[in-house]
C-alpha cells in the first residue's frame, strides 16, 4: 500500500481507503470460497501445493483433478464424515 504523501494528502487518503476496501473484499471473497469448498469436503488446493513444495520439493504435487477426486472419495469413504443435526 502506498503511503500518503504530504503534498497531496486528500486524494492519497482516498486511494488508500479504496485500496484497503479492495484488499478486504478480495480477502473476504477468498475466505468465502474457501469456506464453501471446505463445507463440501474440499480443502484449499493452493495451500496444499504451497505445503507440498515446502516439505517435499523432490516430488511433484497432485494435480487439481487428482486432489479433488481424492477428497471426494474420502468424504464418503470409511470413517467419512456423517452429518445430521
Amino acid at each position: 500500500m502506498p503511503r500518503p504523501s504530504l503534498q497531496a494528502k486528500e486524494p492519497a487518503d482516498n486511494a488508500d481507503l479504496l485500496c484497503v476496501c479492495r484488499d478486504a473484499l478480495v480477502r473476504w471473497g477468498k475466505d468465502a470460497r474457501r469456506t464453501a469448498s471446505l463445507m463440501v469436503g474440499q480443502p484449499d488446493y493452493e495451500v496444499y501445493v504451497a505445503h507440498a513444495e515446502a516439505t517435499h520439493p523432490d516430488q511433484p504435487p497432485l494435480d487439481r483433478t487428482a486432489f479433488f477426486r481424492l477428497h471426494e472419495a474420502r468424504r464418503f469413504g470409511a470413517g467419512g464424515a456423517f452429518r445430521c443435526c
Partner: protein
Amino acid sequence: MGSEMPKGRTQADPEDRFAMGKLRTALIFGAIAILGAIALAVIALHQGESISAVWIVVAALCVYAIAYRFYARYLAGKVMGLNAKRPTPAVRHNDGLDYVPTPRNVLFGHHFAAIAGAGPLVGPVLAAQMGYLPGVLWILVGAVLAGAVQDMMVLFMSTRRDGRSLGDMVRTEMGPIPGIIAQVGVLMIMVIILAVLALVVVKALAESPWGTFTVAATIPIAIFMGLYTRYLRPGRVGEVSLIGVVLLILAIIGGGHIAADPFWGPAFTLSGTTLAIAMMAYGFVASVIPVWLLLAPRDYLSTFLKIGAILGLAVGILIVRPHIQMPAITPFIDGSGPVFSGALFPFLFITIACGAVSGFHALISSGTTPKLLENENQIPLIGYGAMLCESFVAIMALIAATVLDPAVYFAMNSPVAVIGDNAVSAAAAVAQWGFHITPAELEQLARDVGEHSILSRAGGAPTLAVGMAHILSNVIGGKAMMAFWYHFAILFEALFILTTVDAGTRVCRFMIQDLLGVAVPKMRETKSWTANVLATALTVGLWGYFLYTGVVDPLGGINSLWPLFGIANQMLAAVALILGTVVLFKMKRERFAWATAVPAVWLLICTLTAGFQKLLHPDVKIGFLAHARKYQDALTAGDLLAPAKTAGDMHRIIINDYVNSALTAGFLFVVLTMVVYGVRACLKARRINHPTVVEQPAAHELTLEDEAMDIARA
C-alpha cells in the same frame, strides 16, 4: 461472535488501557444483559395479545453473547486450561491433505455446515404443541449449559489426542469394554436416526405430486452434475452447483404444472408405503454406486441450499417481524398432546434434541474439525460458537412454527385418528382444543401452498415449510409465490435429509463391515462387492424396517419414533459428557468437573425417565409394552383393533412393540453401563495424585516418534 478485548488507540500506559477495556466490557455486556432480561421478561410474562418474534430473537442473541463472552471463556481458561502454545494436530502433522491448519472463519463455516441438519428444524416444530415458551427456554438453556459445552469439550479432547474419534477416546480413557459398548450404541442410534429422517421425508411427500416430482427431479439433476464434474470440468464445484440450483428452481416451477397435469399429477401421487419402499430401494442403490455419480453432487446442492435457506429465513424473520400466534403455554404440557405423547418432563427435553444438545455433534467434533484446527485458543469459537448458531437455527424453526395460526398447526400435526380425514372434522376437532378456524380456511391454505390437503402432515417438515412460506412470501412475491416457497422449503429439507440418509447408510455399512469382520474377516474388505452389497442390504433392511412400521402406524409413526431418536441422541450426548467428566478427573481438574457433570446428570435424568416411561408407562400412547398388552388382550378375545385388518396385522403390531421395547432397553443398557464405567474411572483417577490422562505430550518440539510417523505418512 462475542467481542475481542477492545483495542485502545490512545497512547495511555498499558494499565490504564486495561482498566478502560475492563470498564468498556462491563458497560457493553451490562447493556446486553439488561436488554436480554427485558426481552425474556416480555416473552415469559406476556399474556393475551400476541408478541413479536423479534423479542425472541433479541433474547436469544443476548443470551448467546453473554454465554460466549463469559462462560465459553471460563471453560477455555479455567476448566480446560487451553494453551495457545501447544501445537494442534493440524500443526504437528501438517500434510496438506488431512491435517491442514485452517483459518478460524473458514473452519467455523465448515464445522457449522457439518453440525447443522434436519434435527434442529424438526424437533422445535414438534415441541411447539406445548407453546413457544418451554421450547425457547430449553433451546437457550440447553445450548448454553449443555450442548455447546459438550461440543467444545469433545473438540478439546480430540484436539489433544491427534483428532481421535469419540469411540477411540472412550476406549483409551475408560477401557476396551465401554469402548465396544459405545460403538454398538452409536450404530443403533444411527439406524434410528436414518429411519426417523426418512420418515420425515415420506410424511412430507406422501400424496403430494408437486413435492414428489421436485424431489425425484434432484436425482437426474445430481447425476448430470456428477458426470459434469467427472468428465466435462473436473473439480468445478462452484459452477456446477450454480447450474444445479438453477435446474432445481426450474424443477420447483415445473412441479406445479406436473401436479396440475391430468396424467402426470396422479402418476406422482404416491402413498406413504410406496414412498417408503422407493426410499429403501433408492437408499440401497445410492450408497452402492460410486459416490461421484450421485452422492457427492447432491451433497453440494444440499449443503449450499441449506446454508442459503437458513440465512434466508433469518433475514425474512428480521424483515417481516412476524407475530407469534401460538400461546406461551398450551394445556398439552400434561402429556395429552396430539403431536407427541408424554408430559413436559421428560419429553420436551428429548423432543428438542438438536438445537439444545445433540450427541451427534460429538461425532463431528471428534471427526475432521480437530484435524483442521490452527490453534487451541480457537476451540471456544469453533466448539462453543458454532453450537450457539445451531441453537439459533432451532429458535428460527420454532418461530416459523409458532407464527402459524395454532388451529392450522394442530390440524397439520395431529394424526387422522384424532382429527378425521376432512377439513370439517379437523376444524371441529381443533375447536374442542380452543382454536378456531373454518373448514374453508383450511382448504384455502392448502390451495395457497399448492397441495390437496394440509391435514395430518406430521413430521415437522410440512409445518416448517408453511411457516417459512408464510414468512418468505411476505418478503418476496406475496400470496402468489406462497406455493413456490412452500415447495422450496420442502425441497430443501428433503434434499439434505436424503443426502444424510445415503451418506449415513454408507457410514453404517462400514461400521457393520467392521463389526462383522470380527467373526468373518472377509467382510472387512471394503472393496469386495459381496461384502459391500451384503452390509448395505443389512443397513437398509434395519432402518427400512423402522421406516415401514412408522409409515403404517395409525398415530403417524413420528409419535413413537421421534422420542426413540431423541432418547438415543441425548444418550450419546450423555456418553460424551461422561467422557468429558472422566477426562477432567484424570487431568486432576476435578474441581471444575461440574461443568460437564451437571449437564450429564440432567441428560441422564431426562433420558432414563423417558426411556423407562416408553417401556413401562401404563398409558398405551406412551408405553410400548402397555400398547403390546392391549393388542395381545384384544387378540386373545378375538377382537381386531385399528389399524389392523387381520389377525396377522395384530401380530405384526405386537412384534413392532416388542422390537421398539428391546431397542429402548438396549439404549438404557448402554447408558447405564457407561455411567458405571464413568463413575469407576472418576473414582480411580481421584485416588491417584497425578494426572493420568492419555494426551499427546505438550512438548513444543516433535518427538522422534512423531517424526518417524511423518516420514511414514509421506
